[in-house]
Protein backbone atom coordinates (compact mmCIF):
# COMPACT_ATOMS: atom_id res chain seq x y z
CA UNK A 1 0.00 0.00 0.00
CA UNK A 2 2.81 2.38 0.91
CA UNK A 3 4.79 1.55 -2.24
CA UNK A 4 1.79 2.27 -4.46
CA UNK A 5 1.11 5.58 -2.73
CA UNK A 6 4.68 6.90 -2.64
CA UNK A 7 3.98 9.65 -5.22
CA UNK A 8 1.18 11.07 -3.06
CA UNK A 9 3.14 10.67 0.17
CA UNK A 10 6.01 12.70 -1.27
CA UNK A 11 3.75 15.75 -1.30
CA UNK A 12 1.22 14.94 1.43
CA UNK A 13 3.73 14.31 4.23
CA UNK A 14 5.25 17.82 4.13
CA UNK A 15 1.72 19.25 3.95
CA UNK A 16 0.57 17.29 7.02
CA UNK A 17 3.84 18.19 8.74
CA UNK A 18 3.18 21.88 8.07
CA UNK A 19 -0.29 21.55 9.61
CA UNK A 20 1.19 19.89 12.68
CA UNK A 21 3.91 22.56 13.03
CA UNK A 22 1.29 25.31 12.91
CA UNK A 23 -0.36 23.92 16.07
CA UNK A 24 2.82 24.16 18.11
CA UNK A 25 3.88 27.22 20.07
CA UNK A 26 7.36 25.89 20.82
CA UNK A 27 9.89 26.13 18.01
CA UNK A 28 11.75 22.99 19.07
CA UNK A 29 8.73 20.71 18.61
CA UNK A 30 8.03 22.19 15.21
CA UNK A 31 11.68 21.61 14.36
CA UNK A 32 11.32 17.98 15.42
CA UNK A 33 8.37 17.51 13.05
CA UNK A 34 10.17 19.30 10.22
CA UNK A 35 13.28 17.17 10.80
CA UNK A 36 11.27 13.95 10.75
CA UNK A 37 9.52 14.91 7.51
CA UNK A 38 12.73 16.18 5.90
CA UNK A 39 14.54 12.94 6.69
CA UNK A 40 11.68 10.80 5.31
CA UNK A 41 11.52 12.70 2.01
CA UNK A 42 14.79 11.40 0.49
CA UNK A 43 13.76 7.83 1.33
CA UNK A 44 10.51 8.28 -0.59
CA UNK A 45 12.29 10.00 -3.47
CA UNK A 46 14.89 7.23 -3.60
CA UNK A 47 12.10 4.63 -3.59
CA UNK A 48 10.49 6.41 -6.53
CA UNK A 49 13.78 6.65 -8.42
CA UNK A 50 14.36 2.92 -7.98
CA UNK A 51 10.84 2.15 -9.21
CA UNK A 52 11.35 4.41 -12.24
CA UNK A 53 14.72 2.89 -13.13
CA UNK A 54 13.31 -0.63 -12.81
CA UNK A 55 9.95 -0.34 -14.49
CA UNK A 56 9.78 3.00 -16.30
CA UNK A 57 7.51 6.01 -15.86
CA UNK A 58 5.12 5.94 -12.90
CA UNK A 59 1.65 7.40 -13.29
CA UNK A 60 -0.45 8.07 -10.19
CA UNK A 61 -4.08 9.12 -10.57
CA UNK A 62 -4.95 11.51 -7.76
CA UNK A 63 -8.36 10.73 -6.26
CA UNK A 64 -8.66 7.77 -8.58
CA UNK A 65 -9.72 10.01 -11.50
CA UNK A 66 -8.05 8.64 -14.62
CA UNK A 67 -5.72 10.95 -16.54
CA UNK A 68 -6.06 13.03 -18.66
CA UNK A 69 -9.31 14.03 -16.89
CA UNK A 70 -8.00 13.92 -13.34
CA UNK A 71 -4.73 15.21 -11.93
CA UNK A 72 -1.88 12.88 -12.73
CA UNK A 73 1.40 12.59 -10.86
CA UNK A 74 3.93 11.45 -13.42
CA UNK A 75 7.44 10.46 -12.47
CA UNK A 76 10.18 9.80 -15.00
CA UNK A 77 13.99 9.85 -14.79
CA UNK A 78 14.27 13.65 -14.99
CA UNK A 79 11.90 14.55 -12.17
CA UNK A 80 12.77 11.56 -9.98
CA UNK A 81 16.31 12.94 -10.02
CA UNK A 82 15.04 16.43 -9.11
CA UNK A 83 12.83 15.06 -6.32
CA UNK A 84 15.85 13.34 -4.85
CA UNK A 85 17.96 16.50 -5.12
CA UNK A 86 15.40 18.77 -3.43
CA UNK A 87 14.59 16.32 -0.66
CA UNK A 88 18.27 15.56 0.01
CA UNK A 89 19.06 19.27 0.31
CA UNK A 90 16.17 19.60 2.76
CA UNK A 91 17.35 16.61 4.78
CA UNK A 92 20.94 17.88 5.01
CA UNK A 93 19.88 21.39 6.01
CA UNK A 94 17.25 20.57 8.62
CA UNK A 95 19.66 19.54 11.43
CA UNK A 96 21.48 22.81 10.71
CA UNK A 97 18.29 24.84 10.97
CA UNK A 98 17.66 24.55 14.71
CA UNK A 99 20.55 26.64 16.04
CA UNK A 100 20.42 29.09 13.16
CA UNK A 101 16.68 29.68 13.58
CA UNK A 102 16.99 30.00 17.38
CA UNK A 103 19.53 32.75 16.84
CA UNK A 104 17.82 34.67 14.05
CA UNK A 105 14.06 34.37 14.61
CA UNK A 106 11.95 35.53 17.55
CA UNK A 107 10.77 32.58 19.70
CA UNK A 108 7.05 33.04 18.99
CA UNK A 109 7.69 32.90 15.26
CA UNK A 110 9.95 29.85 15.13
CA UNK A 111 7.07 27.38 14.74
CA UNK A 112 5.74 29.48 11.86
CA UNK A 113 9.16 29.35 10.24
CA UNK A 114 9.08 25.55 10.12
CA UNK A 115 5.47 25.60 8.91
CA UNK A 116 6.47 27.84 6.02
CA UNK A 117 9.56 25.75 5.33
CA UNK A 118 7.49 22.57 5.04
CA UNK A 119 4.91 24.30 2.82
CA UNK A 120 7.75 25.51 0.62
CA UNK A 121 9.15 21.98 0.44
CA UNK A 122 5.68 20.63 -0.36
CA UNK A 123 5.24 23.15 -3.19
CA UNK A 124 8.65 22.49 -4.73
CA UNK A 125 8.22 18.72 -4.63
CA UNK A 126 4.71 19.16 -6.03
CA UNK A 127 5.94 21.16 -9.04
CA UNK A 128 8.47 18.45 -9.71
CA UNK A 129 6.12 15.50 -9.37
CA UNK A 130 2.92 16.60 -11.07
CA UNK A 131 2.05 16.04 -14.71
CA UNK A 132 -0.77 18.56 -14.76
CA UNK A 133 -0.15 22.09 -16.03
CA UNK A 134 -2.61 23.79 -13.69
CA UNK A 135 -1.56 21.72 -10.70
CA UNK A 136 1.94 23.11 -11.31
CA UNK A 137 0.51 26.60 -10.87
CA UNK A 138 -1.12 25.64 -7.57
CA UNK A 139 2.13 24.21 -6.23
CA UNK A 140 4.05 27.19 -7.61
CA UNK A 141 1.83 29.48 -5.55
CA UNK A 142 2.19 27.30 -2.44
CA UNK A 143 5.97 27.36 -2.64
CA UNK A 144 6.17 31.03 -3.61
CA UNK A 145 3.80 32.27 -0.89
CA UNK A 146 5.72 30.22 1.64
CA UNK A 147 9.02 31.66 0.47
CA UNK A 148 7.70 35.25 0.67
CA UNK A 149 6.84 34.49 4.28
CA UNK A 150 10.23 32.89 4.94
CA UNK A 151 12.05 35.91 3.54
CA UNK A 152 9.91 38.37 5.50
CA UNK A 153 10.93 36.59 8.74
CA UNK A 154 14.45 38.03 8.36
CA UNK A 155 15.77 40.15 11.23
CA UNK A 156 16.61 43.12 9.04
CA UNK A 157 13.68 45.49 8.36
CA UNK A 158 14.73 45.48 4.70
CA UNK A 159 13.62 41.83 4.61
CA UNK A 160 10.01 43.05 4.49
CA UNK A 161 10.69 45.20 1.47
CA UNK A 162 12.62 42.39 -0.21
CA UNK A 163 9.75 39.97 0.42
CA UNK A 164 7.26 42.50 -0.96
CA UNK A 165 9.38 43.03 -4.07
CA UNK A 166 9.58 39.27 -4.58
CA UNK A 167 5.83 39.00 -4.02
CA UNK A 168 5.09 41.50 -6.79
CA UNK A 169 7.58 39.96 -9.22
CA UNK A 170 6.62 36.41 -8.32
CA UNK A 171 2.92 37.17 -8.79
CA UNK A 172 3.59 38.67 -12.21
CA UNK A 173 5.52 35.52 -13.08
CA UNK A 174 2.69 33.28 -11.90
CA UNK A 175 0.15 35.36 -13.82
CA UNK A 176 2.15 35.02 -17.02
CA UNK A 177 2.35 31.30 -16.39
CA UNK A 178 -1.42 31.00 -16.02
CA UNK A 179 -2.05 33.07 -19.15
CA UNK A 180 0.23 30.67 -21.04
CA UNK A 181 -1.55 27.63 -19.63
CA UNK A 182 -4.92 29.21 -20.41
CA UNK A 183 -3.95 29.73 -24.05
CA UNK A 184 -2.72 26.16 -24.31
CA UNK A 185 -5.94 24.92 -22.72
CA UNK A 186 -8.01 26.86 -25.22
CA UNK A 187 -6.05 25.29 -28.06
CA UNK A 188 -5.86 21.70 -26.82
CA UNK A 189 -8.73 21.33 -24.34
CA UNK A 190 -6.52 19.53 -21.84
CA UNK A 191 -4.35 20.37 -18.86
CA UNK A 192 -2.45 17.10 -18.69
CA UNK A 193 1.06 17.81 -19.99
CA UNK A 194 1.56 14.51 -21.80
CA UNK A 195 -1.87 14.75 -23.40
CA UNK A 196 -1.19 18.39 -24.26
CA UNK A 197 2.04 17.43 -26.03
CA UNK A 198 0.28 14.92 -28.25
CA UNK A 199 -2.58 17.30 -29.07
CA UNK A 200 -0.20 20.11 -29.94
CA UNK A 201 1.17 18.04 -32.82
CA UNK A 202 0.00 19.71 -36.01
CA UNK A 203 -0.98 23.05 -34.50
CA UNK A 204 2.46 24.14 -33.24
CA UNK A 205 2.53 26.95 -35.74
CA UNK A 206 -0.68 28.60 -34.63
CA UNK A 207 -0.21 32.03 -33.17
CA UNK A 208 -1.98 31.20 -29.92
CA UNK A 209 0.43 28.34 -29.24
CA UNK A 210 3.47 30.52 -29.92
CA UNK A 211 2.03 33.24 -27.67
CA UNK A 212 1.50 30.62 -24.96
CA UNK A 213 5.15 29.61 -25.34
CA UNK A 214 6.23 33.24 -24.96
CA UNK A 215 4.09 33.78 -21.85
CA UNK A 216 5.25 30.54 -20.24
CA UNK A 217 8.89 31.36 -20.98
CA UNK A 218 8.68 34.82 -19.44
CA UNK A 219 6.65 33.65 -16.45
CA UNK A 220 8.96 30.79 -15.58
CA UNK A 221 12.06 32.91 -16.29
CA UNK A 222 10.86 35.35 -13.64
CA UNK A 223 10.73 32.47 -11.15
CA UNK A 224 14.17 31.21 -12.08
CA UNK A 225 15.64 34.74 -11.99
CA UNK A 226 16.94 34.82 -15.55
CA UNK A 227 18.74 38.10 -16.19
CA UNK A 228 17.15 40.79 -16.46
CA UNK A 229 14.19 39.34 -14.53
CA UNK A 230 16.41 38.69 -11.50
CA UNK A 231 15.90 41.97 -9.63
CA UNK A 232 13.92 40.33 -6.82
CA UNK A 233 16.67 37.85 -6.04
CA UNK A 234 19.63 39.76 -4.51
CA UNK A 235 17.62 41.49 -1.77
CA UNK A 236 15.54 38.41 -1.06
CA UNK A 237 18.63 36.27 -0.54
CA UNK A 238 20.54 38.96 1.33
CA UNK A 239 17.95 39.75 4.01
CA UNK A 240 16.18 36.40 4.50
CA UNK A 241 17.13 34.27 7.54
CA UNK A 242 20.29 32.24 6.80
CA UNK A 243 18.47 28.91 6.73
CA UNK A 244 15.80 30.25 4.36
CA UNK A 245 18.43 31.70 2.03
CA UNK A 246 20.38 28.46 1.93
CA UNK A 247 17.30 26.35 1.22
CA UNK A 248 15.68 28.66 -1.33
CA UNK A 249 18.96 29.32 -3.15
CA UNK A 250 19.66 25.62 -3.42
CA UNK A 251 16.21 24.50 -4.55
CA UNK A 252 13.66 27.09 -5.74
CA UNK A 253 15.42 28.34 -8.88
CA UNK A 254 16.42 24.78 -9.77
CA UNK A 255 12.82 23.60 -9.74
CA UNK A 256 11.88 26.54 -12.00
CA UNK A 257 14.63 25.54 -14.45
CA UNK A 258 13.24 22.00 -14.47
CA UNK A 259 9.79 23.39 -15.29
CA UNK A 260 11.20 25.37 -18.20
CA UNK A 261 12.95 22.26 -19.55
CA UNK A 262 9.74 20.29 -19.16
CA UNK A 263 7.75 22.79 -21.23
CA UNK A 264 10.44 23.34 -23.85
CA UNK A 265 11.28 19.73 -24.53
CA UNK A 266 8.33 17.58 -23.53
CA UNK A 267 5.29 19.81 -24.10
CA UNK A 268 6.25 21.99 -27.05
CA UNK A 269 9.13 19.87 -28.33
CA UNK A 270 12.59 21.12 -29.22
CA UNK A 271 11.65 21.52 -32.90
CA UNK A 272 8.94 24.11 -32.16
CA UNK A 273 10.91 25.99 -29.53
CA UNK A 274 14.16 26.32 -31.43
CA UNK A 275 12.95 26.76 -35.00
CA UNK A 276 9.78 28.82 -34.73
CA UNK A 277 11.03 31.37 -32.21
CA UNK A 278 14.58 32.68 -31.62
CA UNK A 279 14.64 31.08 -28.17
CA UNK A 280 18.23 29.84 -28.45
CA UNK A 281 19.50 33.29 -29.45
CA UNK A 282 17.57 35.06 -26.68
CA UNK A 283 18.73 32.59 -24.04
CA UNK A 284 22.32 32.80 -25.28
CA UNK A 285 22.32 36.58 -25.04
CA UNK A 286 20.61 36.71 -21.64
CA UNK A 287 22.79 33.96 -20.22
CA UNK A 288 25.93 35.82 -21.27
CA UNK A 289 24.53 39.05 -19.85
CA UNK A 290 23.88 37.22 -16.55
CA UNK A 291 27.31 35.60 -16.50
CA UNK A 292 29.09 38.91 -16.98
CA UNK A 293 26.68 41.55 -15.69
CA UNK A 294 25.78 39.83 -12.43
CA UNK A 295 29.38 38.73 -11.82
CA UNK A 296 30.61 42.29 -12.25
CA UNK A 297 27.95 43.61 -9.86
CA UNK A 298 29.00 40.91 -7.38
CA UNK A 299 32.48 42.47 -7.33
CA UNK A 300 31.18 45.63 -5.69
CA UNK A 301 29.12 44.15 -2.84
CA UNK A 302 30.20 44.58 0.75
CA UNK A 303 27.61 42.12 2.11
CA UNK A 304 28.71 38.53 1.49
CA UNK A 305 25.16 37.17 1.22
CA UNK A 306 24.32 39.80 -1.37
CA UNK A 307 27.50 39.01 -3.27
CA UNK A 308 26.61 35.31 -3.30
CA UNK A 309 23.10 36.22 -4.47
CA UNK A 310 24.50 38.05 -7.50
CA UNK A 311 26.78 35.10 -8.05
CA UNK A 312 23.62 32.93 -8.10
CA UNK A 313 22.20 35.06 -10.92
CA UNK A 314 25.46 34.52 -12.82
CA UNK A 315 25.41 30.78 -12.15
CA UNK A 316 21.81 30.52 -13.35
CA UNK A 317 23.23 32.03 -16.54
CA UNK A 318 25.40 28.92 -16.93
CA UNK A 319 22.37 26.67 -16.53
CA UNK A 320 20.34 28.55 -19.14
CA UNK A 321 23.43 28.60 -21.38
CA UNK A 322 23.03 24.83 -21.53
CA UNK A 323 19.46 25.36 -22.78
CA UNK A 324 20.76 27.82 -25.41
CA UNK A 325 23.47 25.44 -26.65
CA UNK A 326 20.78 22.77 -26.99
CA UNK A 327 22.93 19.83 -28.03
CA UNK A 328 23.31 16.77 -25.87
CA UNK A 329 26.63 17.74 -24.27
CA UNK A 330 25.61 21.35 -23.63
CA UNK A 331 22.27 20.37 -22.14
CA UNK A 332 24.03 17.79 -19.96
CA UNK A 333 26.25 20.63 -18.73
CA UNK A 334 23.20 22.77 -17.93
CA UNK A 335 21.40 19.99 -16.07
CA UNK A 336 24.47 18.85 -14.17
CA UNK A 337 25.13 22.47 -13.18
CA UNK A 338 21.61 22.62 -11.80
CA UNK A 339 22.62 19.84 -9.39
CA UNK A 340 26.14 21.12 -8.79
CA UNK A 341 25.10 24.70 -8.16
CA UNK A 342 22.57 23.51 -5.58
CA UNK A 343 25.39 21.76 -3.71
CA UNK A 344 27.93 24.57 -3.79
CA UNK A 345 25.56 27.48 -3.16
CA UNK A 346 23.97 25.49 -0.35
CA UNK A 347 27.41 24.97 1.20
CA UNK A 348 28.39 28.65 0.78
CA UNK A 349 25.19 30.02 2.29
CA UNK A 350 25.37 27.53 5.16
CA UNK A 351 28.97 28.53 5.93
CA UNK A 352 27.94 32.19 5.89
CA UNK A 353 24.95 31.34 8.09
CA UNK A 354 27.40 29.80 10.57
CA UNK A 355 29.45 33.00 10.47
CA UNK A 356 26.34 35.04 11.20
CA UNK A 357 25.55 32.69 14.08
CA UNK A 358 28.92 33.48 15.67
CA UNK A 359 29.65 37.13 14.82
CA UNK A 360 26.19 38.49 13.93
CA UNK A 361 27.33 40.11 10.71
CA UNK A 362 27.99 39.17 7.11
CA UNK A 363 29.81 42.32 6.02
CA UNK A 364 33.09 41.52 4.28
CA UNK A 365 35.05 43.87 6.59
CA UNK A 366 33.79 42.04 9.67
CA UNK A 367 34.97 38.73 8.25
CA UNK A 368 38.60 39.88 8.32
CA UNK A 369 40.90 37.30 9.86
CA UNK A 370 38.07 34.90 10.56
CA UNK A 371 40.15 32.06 9.11
CA UNK A 372 42.15 32.06 12.35
CA UNK A 373 39.06 31.69 14.52
CA UNK A 374 36.79 29.45 12.41
CA UNK A 375 39.26 27.55 10.19
CA UNK A 376 36.96 24.60 9.40
CA UNK A 377 33.95 26.70 8.42
CA UNK A 378 36.08 29.08 6.42
CA UNK A 379 37.87 26.16 4.79
CA UNK A 380 34.48 24.86 3.69
CA UNK A 381 33.60 28.31 2.37
CA UNK A 382 36.87 28.47 0.42
CA UNK A 383 36.42 25.02 -1.12
CA UNK A 384 32.84 25.75 -2.18
CA UNK A 385 34.08 29.11 -3.50
CA UNK A 386 36.68 27.31 -5.61
CA UNK A 387 33.83 25.26 -6.99
CA UNK A 388 31.96 28.44 -8.00
CA UNK A 389 35.09 29.53 -9.84
CA UNK A 390 35.25 26.13 -11.53
CA UNK A 391 38.61 24.91 -10.29
CA UNK A 392 39.46 21.39 -11.52
CA UNK A 393 38.54 18.73 -8.95
CA UNK A 394 35.34 20.49 -7.94
CA UNK A 395 31.81 20.15 -9.32
CA UNK A 396 31.97 23.62 -10.87
CA UNK A 397 34.66 22.39 -13.24
CA UNK A 398 32.57 19.43 -14.39
CA UNK A 399 29.63 21.56 -15.49
CA UNK A 400 31.80 24.16 -17.21
CA UNK A 401 33.70 21.38 -18.98
CA UNK A 402 30.47 19.99 -20.45
CA UNK A 403 29.24 23.47 -21.38
CA UNK A 404 32.56 24.19 -23.12
CA UNK A 405 32.46 20.89 -25.01
CA UNK A 406 28.86 21.54 -26.01
CA UNK A 407 29.77 25.00 -27.29
CA UNK A 408 32.60 23.53 -29.36
CA UNK A 409 30.28 20.93 -30.87
CA UNK A 410 28.18 23.84 -32.11
CA UNK A 411 31.35 25.44 -33.46
CA UNK A 412 31.04 28.35 -31.01
CA UNK A 413 34.73 28.70 -30.12
CA UNK A 414 34.25 32.24 -28.90
CA UNK A 415 31.81 30.98 -26.28
CA UNK A 416 34.56 28.88 -24.69
CA UNK A 417 36.65 32.02 -24.26
CA UNK A 418 33.69 33.84 -22.74
CA UNK A 419 33.15 30.93 -20.32
CA UNK A 420 36.75 31.23 -19.15
CA UNK A 421 36.53 35.03 -18.99
CA UNK A 422 33.42 34.96 -16.80
CA UNK A 423 35.12 32.40 -14.53
CA UNK A 424 37.97 34.88 -14.13
CA UNK A 425 35.53 37.47 -12.78
CA UNK A 426 34.33 34.94 -10.20
CA UNK A 427 37.98 34.41 -9.25
CA UNK A 428 38.05 38.07 -8.31
CA UNK A 429 34.85 38.22 -6.26
CA UNK A 430 35.43 34.93 -4.45
CA UNK A 431 39.13 35.72 -4.12
CA UNK A 432 38.38 39.05 -2.49
CA UNK A 433 36.47 37.36 0.34
CA UNK A 434 38.98 34.55 0.68
CA UNK A 435 41.82 37.06 0.94
CA UNK A 436 40.01 39.01 3.66
CA UNK A 437 39.22 35.84 5.60
CA UNK A 438 42.70 34.34 5.63
CA UNK A 439 45.23 37.14 5.27
CA UNK A 440 43.83 40.22 7.04
CA UNK A 441 44.35 40.99 10.73
CA UNK A 442 41.44 40.01 12.95
CA UNK A 443 38.50 42.43 12.89
CA UNK A 444 36.80 43.55 16.11
CA UNK A 445 33.62 41.68 15.22
CA UNK A 446 35.51 38.42 14.71
CA UNK A 447 37.53 38.59 17.96
CA UNK A 448 35.34 36.33 20.10
CA UNK A 449 34.35 33.98 17.29
CA UNK A 450 34.83 30.23 17.41
CA UNK A 451 33.68 27.27 15.34
CA UNK A 452 29.87 26.88 15.17
CA UNK A 453 28.14 23.98 16.99
CA UNK A 454 28.54 20.57 15.38
CA UNK A 455 24.89 20.48 14.30
CA UNK A 456 25.69 23.38 11.97
CA UNK A 457 29.22 22.37 11.05
CA UNK A 458 28.53 18.79 9.95
CA UNK A 459 25.76 19.59 7.40
CA UNK A 460 27.94 22.34 5.91
CA UNK A 461 30.89 19.97 5.62
CA UNK A 462 28.65 17.28 4.12
CA UNK A 463 27.57 19.54 1.26
CA UNK A 464 31.13 20.76 0.88
CA UNK A 465 32.43 17.19 0.68
CA UNK A 466 29.78 16.48 -1.94
CA UNK A 467 31.09 19.33 -4.11
CA UNK A 468 34.51 17.65 -4.07
CA UNK A 469 33.26 14.07 -4.38
CA UNK A 470 31.06 14.75 -7.39
CA UNK A 471 33.92 16.75 -8.88
CA UNK A 472 35.94 13.54 -9.19
CA UNK A 473 33.24 10.91 -9.54
CA UNK A 474 30.95 12.21 -12.26
CA UNK A 475 29.37 8.88 -13.17
CA UNK A 476 26.25 9.52 -11.08
CA UNK A 477 25.62 13.20 -11.71
CA UNK A 478 26.80 13.58 -15.30
CA UNK A 479 25.51 10.10 -16.09
CA UNK A 480 21.95 10.85 -15.00
CA UNK A 481 22.11 14.37 -16.46
CA UNK A 482 23.28 12.87 -19.76
CA UNK A 483 20.38 10.41 -19.76
CA UNK A 484 17.94 13.20 -18.95
CA UNK A 485 19.39 15.42 -21.72
CA UNK A 486 19.19 12.60 -24.26
CA UNK A 487 15.62 11.87 -23.22
CA UNK A 488 14.62 15.54 -23.42
CA UNK A 489 16.19 16.09 -26.85
CA UNK A 490 14.57 12.95 -28.19
CA UNK A 491 11.27 14.72 -27.56
CA UNK A 492 10.59 12.60 -24.46
CA UNK A 493 8.95 9.82 -26.55
Amino acid at each position, binding site marked *: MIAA*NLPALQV*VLPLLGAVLCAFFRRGVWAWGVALLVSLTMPLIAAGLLVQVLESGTIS*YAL*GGWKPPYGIEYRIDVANAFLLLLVSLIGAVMMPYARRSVEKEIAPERQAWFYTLYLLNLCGLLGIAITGDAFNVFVFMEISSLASYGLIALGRDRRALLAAYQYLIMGTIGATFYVIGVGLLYSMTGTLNMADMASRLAGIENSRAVLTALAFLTVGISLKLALFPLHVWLPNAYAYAPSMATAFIAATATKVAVYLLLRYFFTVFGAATVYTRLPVAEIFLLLSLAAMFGASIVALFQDNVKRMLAYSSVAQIGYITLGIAIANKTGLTGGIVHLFNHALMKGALFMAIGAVFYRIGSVRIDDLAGLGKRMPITMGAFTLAGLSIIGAPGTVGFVSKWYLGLGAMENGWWWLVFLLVASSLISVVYIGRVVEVIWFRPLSNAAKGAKEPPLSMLIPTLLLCAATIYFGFDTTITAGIAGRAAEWLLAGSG
Partner: protein
Amino acid sequence: MRLDVIFRVGAKILLPIMLLFALYVQFHGDFGPGGGFQAGVMSAAMVIFYAIIFGLETAQKVFPPRLAEIMVPAGVGIFAGVGVIGMLLGENYLNYSPLADDPAHGQEYGILLVEFGVLVTVSGTMVAIFYCFMGRGR
Protein backbone atom coordinates in the same frame (compact mmCIF):
# COMPACT_ATOMS: atom_id res chain seq x y z
CA MET B 1 -21.27 52.60 18.77
CA ARG B 2 -21.35 50.73 22.03
CA LEU B 3 -24.28 52.74 23.36
CA ASP B 4 -26.36 52.78 20.22
CA VAL B 5 -29.40 50.63 21.01
CA ILE B 6 -30.61 50.31 17.43
CA PHE B 7 -27.28 48.92 16.23
CA ARG B 8 -26.97 46.53 19.14
CA VAL B 9 -30.47 45.12 18.88
CA GLY B 10 -30.35 45.06 15.08
CA ALA B 11 -27.05 43.20 15.19
CA LYS B 12 -28.40 40.65 17.63
CA ILE B 13 -31.29 39.92 15.27
CA LEU B 14 -29.03 39.71 12.22
CA LEU B 15 -26.21 37.58 13.64
CA PRO B 16 -28.07 34.25 13.90
CA ILE B 17 -29.53 34.76 10.43
CA MET B 18 -26.04 35.33 9.03
CA LEU B 19 -24.80 32.12 10.63
CA LEU B 20 -27.83 30.21 9.39
CA PHE B 21 -27.31 31.48 5.86
CA ALA B 22 -23.63 30.57 6.04
CA LEU B 23 -24.55 27.04 7.03
CA TYR B 24 -27.16 26.89 4.26
CA VAL B 25 -24.53 27.90 1.70
CA GLN B 26 -22.16 25.37 3.22
CA PHE B 27 -24.47 22.37 2.99
CA HIS B 28 -26.04 23.45 -0.26
CA GLY B 29 -22.59 23.53 -1.85
CA ASP B 30 -22.84 20.10 -3.46
CA PHE B 31 -26.18 20.87 -5.19
CA GLY B 32 -25.82 24.49 -6.22
CA PRO B 33 -23.64 27.56 -5.98
CA GLY B 34 -21.79 27.89 -2.69
CA GLY B 35 -19.49 25.74 -0.63
CA GLY B 36 -16.86 25.99 2.03
CA PHE B 37 -15.15 29.16 0.86
CA GLN B 38 -18.28 31.30 0.62
CA ALA B 39 -19.67 29.91 3.85
CA GLY B 40 -16.34 30.51 5.57
CA VAL B 41 -16.29 34.14 4.47
CA MET B 42 -19.89 34.64 5.66
CA SER B 43 -19.32 33.14 9.08
CA ALA B 44 -16.13 35.22 9.44
CA ALA B 45 -18.11 38.29 8.37
CA MET B 46 -20.43 37.53 11.26
CA VAL B 47 -17.54 37.71 13.73
CA ILE B 48 -16.21 40.88 12.12
CA PHE B 49 -19.68 42.46 12.23
CA TYR B 50 -19.95 41.56 15.90
CA ALA B 51 -16.54 43.11 16.58
CA ILE B 52 -17.49 46.34 14.81
CA ILE B 53 -20.71 46.75 16.81
CA PHE B 54 -19.63 45.44 20.24
CA GLY B 55 -15.91 46.25 20.15
CA LEU B 56 -12.83 44.15 19.61
CA GLU B 57 -12.39 43.04 23.25
CA THR B 58 -15.91 41.59 23.46
CA ALA B 59 -15.49 39.85 20.13
CA GLN B 60 -12.19 38.36 21.23
CA LYS B 61 -13.86 36.99 24.34
CA VAL B 62 -16.45 35.21 22.20
CA PHE B 63 -13.98 34.19 19.52
CA PRO B 64 -10.44 34.16 20.98
CA PRO B 65 -7.55 34.94 18.58
CA ARG B 66 -5.93 31.66 19.57
CA LEU B 67 -9.00 29.82 18.23
CA ALA B 68 -8.66 31.59 14.88
CA GLU B 69 -4.99 30.63 14.79
CA ILE B 70 -5.84 26.98 15.46
CA MET B 71 -8.62 26.93 12.87
CA VAL B 72 -6.26 27.92 10.05
CA PRO B 73 -4.17 24.72 10.10
CA ALA B 74 -7.07 22.59 11.44
CA GLY B 75 -9.08 23.01 8.25
CA VAL B 76 -6.11 22.11 6.07
CA GLY B 77 -5.60 19.11 8.34
CA ILE B 78 -9.22 18.01 7.83
CA PHE B 79 -8.89 18.35 4.05
CA ALA B 80 -5.61 16.47 3.85
CA GLY B 81 -6.73 13.97 6.50
CA VAL B 82 -9.86 12.93 4.59
CA GLY B 83 -7.60 12.26 1.60
CA VAL B 84 -5.36 10.11 3.77
CA ILE B 85 -8.36 8.06 4.96
CA GLY B 86 -8.98 7.11 1.33
CA MET B 87 -5.36 6.05 1.11
CA LEU B 88 -5.60 3.97 4.32
CA LEU B 89 -8.68 2.20 2.93
CA GLY B 90 -6.66 1.02 -0.03
CA GLU B 91 -7.47 3.59 -2.69
CA ASN B 92 -5.45 6.50 -4.11
CA TYR B 93 -4.99 9.73 -2.18
CA LEU B 94 -8.14 11.95 -2.24
CA ASN B 95 -10.30 9.07 -3.48
CA TYR B 96 -13.43 9.25 -1.31
CA SER B 97 -15.23 6.24 -2.76
CA PRO B 98 -14.35 3.83 0.08
CA LEU B 99 -15.83 6.17 2.72
CA ALA B 100 -19.24 4.46 2.30
CA ASP B 101 -20.52 1.14 0.95
CA ASP B 102 -21.71 2.84 -2.20
CA PRO B 103 -18.88 4.74 -3.99
CA ALA B 104 -21.22 7.58 -4.99
CA HIS B 105 -22.20 8.09 -1.35
CA GLY B 106 -18.55 7.88 -0.37
CA GLN B 107 -17.74 10.69 -2.76
CA GLU B 108 -20.58 12.77 -1.30
CA TYR B 109 -19.40 12.26 2.30
CA GLY B 110 -15.87 13.05 1.20
CA ILE B 111 -16.94 16.31 -0.43
CA LEU B 112 -18.96 17.31 2.65
CA LEU B 113 -16.03 16.68 4.99
CA VAL B 114 -13.54 18.43 2.74
CA GLU B 115 -15.86 21.43 2.37
CA PHE B 116 -16.09 21.57 6.15
CA GLY B 117 -12.28 21.75 6.23
CA VAL B 118 -12.39 24.65 3.77
CA LEU B 119 -15.00 26.43 5.95
CA VAL B 120 -12.82 26.08 9.05
CA THR B 121 -9.65 27.37 7.37
CA VAL B 122 -11.29 30.21 5.47
CA SER B 123 -13.25 31.60 8.41
CA GLY B 124 -10.24 31.21 10.71
CA THR B 125 -7.98 33.01 8.23
CA MET B 126 -10.45 35.87 7.66
CA VAL B 127 -10.89 36.45 11.38
CA ALA B 128 -7.14 36.18 12.00
CA ILE B 129 -6.42 38.79 9.30
CA PHE B 130 -9.11 41.08 10.76
CA TYR B 131 -7.68 40.73 14.29
CA CYS B 132 -4.21 41.43 12.91
CA PHE B 133 -5.32 44.68 11.29
CA MET B 134 -7.35 45.74 14.33
CA GLY B 135 -4.49 44.93 16.69
CA ARG B 136 -2.05 47.21 14.92
CA GLY B 137 -0.82 50.26 16.79
CA ARG B 138 -2.16 49.13 20.15
